[in-house]
């Protein structure tokens, strides 16, 4: 098996589907990731801002109520109003407020001089030798040229969340996408290979070698099932093809011969004009040939009708015993006149699901076959009974039987044992029997039953 080309694999549906579903997976994962982390980050920011708003409101209130000196007192740490760099470590550790009160732009009244910000909300960095953690700030003007700036370090969770989501996005793109590409490639390559063998089988069959079959792995997977289905189909086709050959020969013989005979008789009528007795004989003979021809046509049409399977829709409960009894009674005198006998052993009340008319024709054809092929004085028998919950019909005789190598062929269309080529009959009778049996899902076999043979029909069990 050759390895499929890369572009063929990429064009394969499986590959495209794998890729598409992975892309969808990545996009949906990103949306969920952003949504969930975004929600937490926002709520953390809200907490920070609440804290800042609260603190600035307190200072503002103090200033408005008790004046600037009182407000300055709020900033006191370790007895100092102006903070030093060293104080910031503790603030960062404790996640405490960092603030500054300035007058006239750059005169620091209280707080940390290294905190710079613009009016309103903003993000800033401290002017500090070692600490450069970002800080959220709010600057308000308490009075003309008196500015209060309040800030709070970002909670570390925000950092962690943001880092996490960045890392996850990278992982999705860098790991999942290539992985899906590889998975898709190998998946579609294996599917492609199996389909390729099926295509190859189809091509081979199309090029005329009808005996080719799709390989079967034996693990019963969907490809095996497909291959089995295709093989069954090919079996049918091959059989049908073989049949057509037999049929064309059969049609040539069974339809052309009577036609030729009719033509011959017409010619004779032309020659014998005036001789009424001769003409009458020709007409009678031509009529007999015509009947043979029509019989073959009818059988072919019937066969087509049965094999098309439409009759199945009209299946109903049929009293098989009654049909068999009726046919037994109808044929018994015919057998007697042919110096043969017909023994009947029919259990009553055996019902099957089927088509009464076709079942009658099936039995009639089997009886006619026995009538035609059993030797003079033969004992033919018809038996109907239940065996293992299944209705079983047997029609057999006590000789001469059918040679083993011909048994498989008797159900073929237009097949007739060479010796009986000349006897009347279309050679379709048993094909029709087989087709009717198939329509009823009944198994039909021709068994040796020394000294004769027996046709055995076993219907499916009824529930």
């Amino acid at each position: 098996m050759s390895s499929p080309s890369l572009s063929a694999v990429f064009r394969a549906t499986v590959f495209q589907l794998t890729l598409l579903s992975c892309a969808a997976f990545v996009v949906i994962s990103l949306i969920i990731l952003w949504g969930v982390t975004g929600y937490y980050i926002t709520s953390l920011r809200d907490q920070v801002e609440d804290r800042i708003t609260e603190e600035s409101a307190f200072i503002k209130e103090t200033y408005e109520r008790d004046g600037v000196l009182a407000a300055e007192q709020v900033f006191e740490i370790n007895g100092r109003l102006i903070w030093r760099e060293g104080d910031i470590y503790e603030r960062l550790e404790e996640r405490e407020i960092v603030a500054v009160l300035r007058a006239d732009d750059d005169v620091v009244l209280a707080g940390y001089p290294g905190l710079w910000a613009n009016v309103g909300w903003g993000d800033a960095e401290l002017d500090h030798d070692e600490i450069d953690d970002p800080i959220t700030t709010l600057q308000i003007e308490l009075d003309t040229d008196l500015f209060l700036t309040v800030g709070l370090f970002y909670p570390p969770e925000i950092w962690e969340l943001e880092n996490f989501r960045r890392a996850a996005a990278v992982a999705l793109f860098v790991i999942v996408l290539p992985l899906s590409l590889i998975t898709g490639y190998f998946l579609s390559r294996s599917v492609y290979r199996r389909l390729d063998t099926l295509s190859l089988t189809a091509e081979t069959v199309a090029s005329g070698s009808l005996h080719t079959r799709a390989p079967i792995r034996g693990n019963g997977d969907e490809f095996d099932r497909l291959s089995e289905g295709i093989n069954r189909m090919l079996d049918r086709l091959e059989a049908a093809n073989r049949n057509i050959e037999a049929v064309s020969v059969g049609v040539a013989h069974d339809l052309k011969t009577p036609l030729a005979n009719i033509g011959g008789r017409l010619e004779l009528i032309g020659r014998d004009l005036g001789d009424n007795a001769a003409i009458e004989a020709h007409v009678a003979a031509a009529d007999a040939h015509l009947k043979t021809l029509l019989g073959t046509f009818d059988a072919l049409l019937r066969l087509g009708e049965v094999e098309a399977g439409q009759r199945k829709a009209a299946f109903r409960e049929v009293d098989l015993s009654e049909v068999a009894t009726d046919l037994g009674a109808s044929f018994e005198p015919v057998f007697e006149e042919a110096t043969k006998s017909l023994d009947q052993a029919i259990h009553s009340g055996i019902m099957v699901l089927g088509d009464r008319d076709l079942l009658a024709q099936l039995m009639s054809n089997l009886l006619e076959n026995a009538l035609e092929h059993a030797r003079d004085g033969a004992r033919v028998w018809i038996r109907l009974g239940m065996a293992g919950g299944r209705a079983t019909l047997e029609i057999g005789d006590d000789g001469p039987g059918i040679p083993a190598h011909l048994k498989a062929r008797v159900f073929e269309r237009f097949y007739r044992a060479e010796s009986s080529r000349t006897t009347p009959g279309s050679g379709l009778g048993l094909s029709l029997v087989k087709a009717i049996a198939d329509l009823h899902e009944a198994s039909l076999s021709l068994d040796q039953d020394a000294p004769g043979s027996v046709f055995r029909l076993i219907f499916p069990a009824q529930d």
Partner: protein
Amino acid sequence: MKVVIVEDDDETGQFVERGLREAGAMVTRFSDARSALPHLASTDCDVIVFDRMLPGMDGVQAVRLLRGSGVQTPILMLTAMSGIDDRVDGLEAGADDYLVKPFAFSELHARLKSLLRRPPMATDASELRLADLHLDRLRHRAQRGDTVLDLSPLEFRLLEFLMLNPDQVVTRTMLLEKVWGYSFDPKTSIVQTHMSRLRAKVDKPFGQDLITTVRGAGYVIAEP
């Protein structure tokens, strides 16, 4: 007998028309349903022969239309199709009988006669009589004069069907359809065999034949 034939195939039409004229019938022939329908609606006739496949409106449709407009004349359908479903379609549309092409003229004639007789003798009568032949349908007993006939159930059914259609030709296919209930035609001569057995019991011992063979057509039961 006034017969209307609706048949597009000229050969078949001529064949049927000539046969019926020779049998003394008055025949009107149409080659499609559209031209036949107005005539059928306005003129009385005894029986109609309709081809199943006609150009334009097919026979089944035409029959349904006729029956819908209240025409009760017996109808026989001709068809080249022999599938059971085709048969059922025709009868469901309102045709009274059905004949598959090709057919012998005698077969068509016998069937038309049988349709004209409809309804024949009360089909639910419990006793049938013809000359000195007496059939008790309830007790399944046949008697000729004082002699009780020993008939098989099948022979009884054959005789019963003949007696329900006295003085009429009953064909082999009619017997297969009506007595046996088969729509297929066995190659074997089961009808002939049983008929000859029946006649051996009904006629032979009495020296007077009620049942006669009509050559190439079928059988008739009639007063001698």
